[in-house]
């Protein structure tokens, strides 16, 4: 086992002292003012809409669910109404076209009969 020389012991002591001074000097420092608010704002901006809904209080979640369900019902109701109206319009259009075709054919027939009878249509 080697015996340490006085210079070595002094260096060790000085090293320890330096380390102690270093620990004292390296105190934690405060971040700039408003740091927490900035992080909170960035975190909230990152949260997806679905997650935000999950974070809502239960009562708000129930109300939100109710409003969404009511909105869907109203949407379905108006959608169905629009569909029925469209169907009715199409049926009416078809009936009108059929009636027009029958009328055209009848008129052509009458015109043909009159023509055969010698009636002339001079305009």
């Amino acid at each position, binding site marked *: 086992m080697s015996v340490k020389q006085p210079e070595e012991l002094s260096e060790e002591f000085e090293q320890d002292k330096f380390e102690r001074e*270093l620990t004292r*000097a390296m105190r*934690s420092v405060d971040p700039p003012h408003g740091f927490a608010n900035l992080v*909170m704002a960035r*975190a909230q901006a990152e949260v997806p809409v679905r997650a935000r809904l999950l974070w809502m209080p239960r009562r708000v979640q129930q109300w939100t669910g109710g409003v969404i369900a009511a909105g869907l019902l109203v949407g379905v109701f108006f959608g169905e109404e629009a569909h029925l109206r469209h169907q009715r319009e199409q049926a009416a259009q078809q009936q009108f076209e059929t009636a027009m075709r029958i009328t055209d054919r009848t008129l052509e027939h009458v015109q043909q009969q009159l023509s055969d009878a010698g009636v002339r249509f001079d305009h």
Partner: protein
Amino acid sequence: MAIADDEFRRLIEFYQRMVYSIALRVTGDPSTAEEVAQDVFLELHRSVDQLVGADHIRYWLRRVATHRSIDAIRRNSIRPEAAAEEWEDDQSVEDDAPISSIRLQARLDELLRALPEPMRVVVVLRYQEEMLPDEIARMLGKSIASVKSHLHHGLKLMRRKAAVTMKEYVRETA
């Protein structure tokens, strides 16, 4: 389940000094440190579900803050202000000059900036966070011998640099 806003704010307020100080001392730049610290907390916000207990959160924050700070140094190509060897070989410096913590604190950032990155990181974790070499080794994924070597050389370089700059400091203020 995600963390509630008030709980997350409490975590930020409790750990912000630690995270910002690690980032500041490792990067050596206040604006980079603020950016790194913000990113660390945002990462915590996304990962908090996987962390159990205060010790786990503190360990995780230290580790992520250290790694993000190292990434920032490399990304921004922040280099030591002087090559360590320049003052390591300066034999005219008196090693045994007494250095008070107040004077050391005044020049601390300058001393740390002069250290190469691996030494700076272990010095910050050892003397600011008061972590043991084996804890630092585990956190950084390095061997204990490597951490001890960085600590030894880092301290040696800081002592020399401190002796030089303190002398200058005394001369400047006299």
